[in-house]
């Protein structure tokens, strides 16, 4: 059962453009939504995360938008740079005793120079 659905599978953006990656979840018990960034040959690294009590969180060029009623959240990368080219995974977790991250299937972002 895929509890976190991520789209698109791949994304190509020009330098300076906006990259948008979308995720939808099913389990309303999820209460923490991190995004991970993975470069080739490396492990995923936490990029930014949000809790459902806020609708938006911004860190530098990265913004998470969260829509609790629609059970959707998205990552926006403003002024995309070639160095942002990587695979991005959304994830969701129910904090507490479970603490098992459920990852989306990933989006391979390519930012053209």
């Amino acid at each position, binding site marked *: 059962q895929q509890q976190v659905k*991520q789209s698109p599978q791949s994304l190509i953006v020009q330098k300076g453009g906006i990259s948008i990656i979308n995720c939808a979840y099913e389990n309303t018990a999820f209460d*923490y*939504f*991190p995004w991970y960034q993975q470069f080739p*040959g*490396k*492990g*995923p*690294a*936490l990029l930014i*995360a949000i809790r459902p009590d806020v609708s938006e969180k911004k860190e530098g060029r990265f913004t998470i938008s969260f829509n609790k009623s629609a059970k959707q959240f998205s990552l926006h990368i403003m002024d995309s740079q070639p160095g942002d080219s990587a695979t991005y*995974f959304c*994830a*969701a*977790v*129910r*904090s*507490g005793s479970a*603490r*098992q*991250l459920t*990852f*989306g*299937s*990933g989006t*391979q972002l390519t930012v053209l120079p």
Partner: protein
Amino acid sequence: EAGVVQSPRYKIIEKKQPVAFWCNPISGHNTLYWYLQNLGQGPELLIRYENEEAVDDSQLPKDRFSAERLKGVDSTLKIQPAELGDSAVYLCASSPGAGKKAGELFFGEGSRLTVL
């Protein structure tokens, strides 16, 4: 601060051979995870440890996979015998434990397994 260390980085074996992966988590991190990542997919949990105890191993194929975390620090993941379908990247991650940052995992660089 040192990150999560995994070895070997790459391993090529023939099917039916055994293989083992080692993980050293970040110092002080009580929770340790082993994830499987197939090409083009997100990581999938194999097993989670809280200190020495395996608290979630429901996704671990126990007929051929085994794991241990002696003394609640380093961990080893073993596959015996390996099958062609086991070719993947095996990721180890650690986290400090309970609390608000439940989803903040620190991953190693992974061990890429190729089964011929």
